């Protein structure tokens, strides 16, 4: 659970601290992480207060002008908060509904839904935004065309290029996280808490509202926090759906500020800083609300949640869950697939005109995308492997070491969660440019950035696994005379296997779909998929960008399928 990991640790008493021993397993990662996070952050701050040469790094003249300038762009901040709040509310609602349907009802097909509703998240916002721009464009969006054809009128059903449209797409592609977090909490909840409510006369609704909901609150809030921060930093959806509709949130504004010449770094950095502060306030607020309410997390034990026969509601719930699968998976992939076999951006429905040439073009003929596919696979494997390795070492240091500073290490590890990745990537780029070693323009730079930004995700996965494994098991093996490395090899790692695989797969998928962190870090020698898709969206034409997005989706789907096969059903994304 995220919140548990972010929760501030009680600092040890000063006296104890002075004598405390900080082991290498703690200070090494702590120093490295502090550097990798702190230096970009430092450059970002200096840039935000830079009132001299906008391109000086670090700045030479300081002042508040940039923040003053921001006050004439309060709409960016307002819009960011609008979509983050709206997207979170809608996404959480969807998440609660789906988690409830999957874990707590007798609705048919629950196992299938559990599998399917997890997929939109790894598919990612870029695919989502591209697909929904084809589905929900007011004139020629597929859904609107179908609607106008059915009604015979020429007014569209809806327009996706609106704040509401953005909120909608954000919500459906973030909802799987809420399903996962809330679903896990539902499985951890002692069913007798609800049973006792019915025993004492509470009906289904009273039980749901007075007992279940408050007990789920920590999980709901931490899911909400996750979504909120991730929507605040989301780049692809507002850029693709908002920019041409004159709707600017922080991220697409920052992107334009960076792109224009002369680029206004200080204003963008100031805006980025405001975003980080907003995220920080959100984290703080949620932690305040949750203080002393970590009760759901307390029982590590998994229960079999009580399943409620929804009677008359069964089929409406089934229909709603199906609708979610349709709008988050079937329609987007269908729309992309359809567009990817076209010869022009004008969609033809006659299969005889369809072609696979676009796939050949992006996979074989076009060097940039060909290289981008290869690079993204390398990055996926690299981030997965190194991310898991780092996260495992940190998790073991945090949970098994007796060294002081463990809690601090955990907090620092989780810190990148609060940084919008687009902003962080820029600080990271600056850092790499000022480093004496030649990292800039190499895939290694992108890889390092990925590892840092996805470390919270990796740590959360690995820490859950490390905690679950009873140290008694390890000690038992050690008492048997096994050496430390043997214990690691024969006991710890096999026990961690499915958790490692799940985390690895998750990192692989998020790396393949990533765009924010790599947009500024990849270059001519190191194209990667996300920015390549984005660049195609810019100037490549609909059929080709759809084909490339389909390739990305396919890689992710194959990874999902493979990990399900190898690691069994406990794998969740």
């Amino acid at each position: 659970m995220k919140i548990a990991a972010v929760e501030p640790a009680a600092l040890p008493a000063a006296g104890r601290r002075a004598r405390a021993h900080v082991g290498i397993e703690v200070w090494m990662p702590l120093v490295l992480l502090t550097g990798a996070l702190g230096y970009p952050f430092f450059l970002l701050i200096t840039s935000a207060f830079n009132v001299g040469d906008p391109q000086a790094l670090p700045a030479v003249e300081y002042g508040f002008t940039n923040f003053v300038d921001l006050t004439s762009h309060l709409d960016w901040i307002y819009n960011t908060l609008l979509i983050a709040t709206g997207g979170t509310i809608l996404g959480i609602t969807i998440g609660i509904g789906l988690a409830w349907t999957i874990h707590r009802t007798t609705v048919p097909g629950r196992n299938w839904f559990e599998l399917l509703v997890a997929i939109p998240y790894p598919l990612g916002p870029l695919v989502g935004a591209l697909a929904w721009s084809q589905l929900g464009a007011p004139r020629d969006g597929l859904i609107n065309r179908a609607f106008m054809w059915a009604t015979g009128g020429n007014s569209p059903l809806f327009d996706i290029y609106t704040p509401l449209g953005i909120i909608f797409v954000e919500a459906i592609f973030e909802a799987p996280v809420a399903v996962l977090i809330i679903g896990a909490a539902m499985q951890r909840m002692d069913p007798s808490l609800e049973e006792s409510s019915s025993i004492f006369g509470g009906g289904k609704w009273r039980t749901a509202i007075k007992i279940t909901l408050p007990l789920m609150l920590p999980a709901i809030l931490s899911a909400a926090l996750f979504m909120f921060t991730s929507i605040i930093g989301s780049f692809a959806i507002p850029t693709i759906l908002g920019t041409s509709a004159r709707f600017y949130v922080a991220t697409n504004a920052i992107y334009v500020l960076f792109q224009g010449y002369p680029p206004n770094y200080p204003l963008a950095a100031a805006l980025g800083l405001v975003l980080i502060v907003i995220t920080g306030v959100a984290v703080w607020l949620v932690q305040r609300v949750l203080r002393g309410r970590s009760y759901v997390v307390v029982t590590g034990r998994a229960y079999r949640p009580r399943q409620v026969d929804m009677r008359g509601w069964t089929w409406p719930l089934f229909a709603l869950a199906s609708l979610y699968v349709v709008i988050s998976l079937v329609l987007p992939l269908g729309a992309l697939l359809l567009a990817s076999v076209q010869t022009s951006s004008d969609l033809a429905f006659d299969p005889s005109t369809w072609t696979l040439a676009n796939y050949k073009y992006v996979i074989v003929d076009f060097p940039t995308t060909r290289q981008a596919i290869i690079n993204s696979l390398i990055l996926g494997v690299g981030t997965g492997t190194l991310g898991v390795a780092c996260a495992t070492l940190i998790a073991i240091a945090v949970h098994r070491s007796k060294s002081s500073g463990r809690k601090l290490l955990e907090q620092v590890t989780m810190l990148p969660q609060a940084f919008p990745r687009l902003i962080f990537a820029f600080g990271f780029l600056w850092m790499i440019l000022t480093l004496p070693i030649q990292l800039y323009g190499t895939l290694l730079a992108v890889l390092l950035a990925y590892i840092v930004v996805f470390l919270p995700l990796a740590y959360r996965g690995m820490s859950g696994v490390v905690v679950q494994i009873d140290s008694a098991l390890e000690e038992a093996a050690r008492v048997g005379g096994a050496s430390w490395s043997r214990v690691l090899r024969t006991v710890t790692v096999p026990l961690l296997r499915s958790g490692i695989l799940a985390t690895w797969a998750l990192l692989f998928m998020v790396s393949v779909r990533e765009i924010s962190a790599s947009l500024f870090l990849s270059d001519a020698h190191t194209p990667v998929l996300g920015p390549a898709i984005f660049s195609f969206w810019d100037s490549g034409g609909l059929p080709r960008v759809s084909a490339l997005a389909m390739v990305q989706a396919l890689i992710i789907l194959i990874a999902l399928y493979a990990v399900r096969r190898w690691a069994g059903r406990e794998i969740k994304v």
Partner: protein
Amino acid sequence: MVGSTAQEKTAPAAGPSAAGATQYIEVRGLTAAYDDKVVVKDISFSVASGEHLSLLGPSGCGKSTTLRCIAGLETPIAGEIVIDGVPVFSSRKGINVPTEKRKLSMVFQSYAIWPHMTVFENVAYALRVQRVREAEIKARVAEVLRMVGMEDYMMRPATNLSGGQQQRVALARSYAARPKAMLLDEPLSNLDARLRVRMREEIKELQHRFNLSTIYVTHDQEEAMAISDRIIIMREGNIEQAGKPLDIYDTPRTRFVADFIGAANILVGSVEKAGASGAPVMKIGEAAIECAPGSQPQKPASDGRHMIAVRTVYPELRREPFAGGANVWKATVRRRVLLGDIVSYLVEWPGGELRIQSFPRDLFDEGEAVHLHIAPAHVIPIAAD
């Protein structure tokens, strides 16, 4: 039976029918299953008004499922459950009253104290559901909390209470609701041994005060013996034996019950003849032992041999010979283990070895020759498994 004790002023009105009805809860032909595995097999029993019944058995015997069926938390596949004359479940008539309408109370193994509420809110929950006036809620909650000694914790959040405190709150919550009957599902199993003994005294005390029909599920025979008017011993979904605690103790019907309740010597041998009293005499090793008057040999084991049970506390040892009579032998003390309040002997007698528990007074030494007497009344023929 405590059904006749005077009702406390504060005790819930058990309903007008309570006074007259003798069978307050009736379970007939109850059959329940989990995932196609039948865990309760066609059992029937009843609980009298104000009676305290225990369902006792090892884990997996179906006792909790039975209780949950009565509470309505599980749906049986067949049978009938009647509470206070009202059928709440009947597979035949298609009745299944939902839990919240059965007006029962239940204490869970995990206590199920709602962690997001204060102690007061926990206890007041049922009263709020019943739309009791706020002033009355306050009074009633305060009163039950005083009874369980938790009045000082009223406004505390329910988290951070100790196990025993949570248990008390759970009890208070149950009594405050003024239910038709109380169901307790292994309420003490999460407490440490000392607290368990204390809590079971308190539960018994509360039971006396409120005089509610109670079904108490436990796997702990001592607890069941201490607390119940009547015990039903369950095994693999069936009722093995039902009766008052002492009757079950003294006259177990099966080897399972003899083993499960108290400590017994299970002696295996053959039926020789009827003794002078007409009771059977069994040949155990070299010894012929007369069984309880009026008893009959029970179902033999698969090899045709019969079994008898002798409670470890009933055989007598003496240095000087017994004055004649049945079931007297010479014996030798082989082992002596002092357990504090009691002393346990392993005695060699013509029938083989016998375990005897007695008080640490006039201790016999290991190897000492003694005289052994087992009163026929305590030699109980039992059915083999």
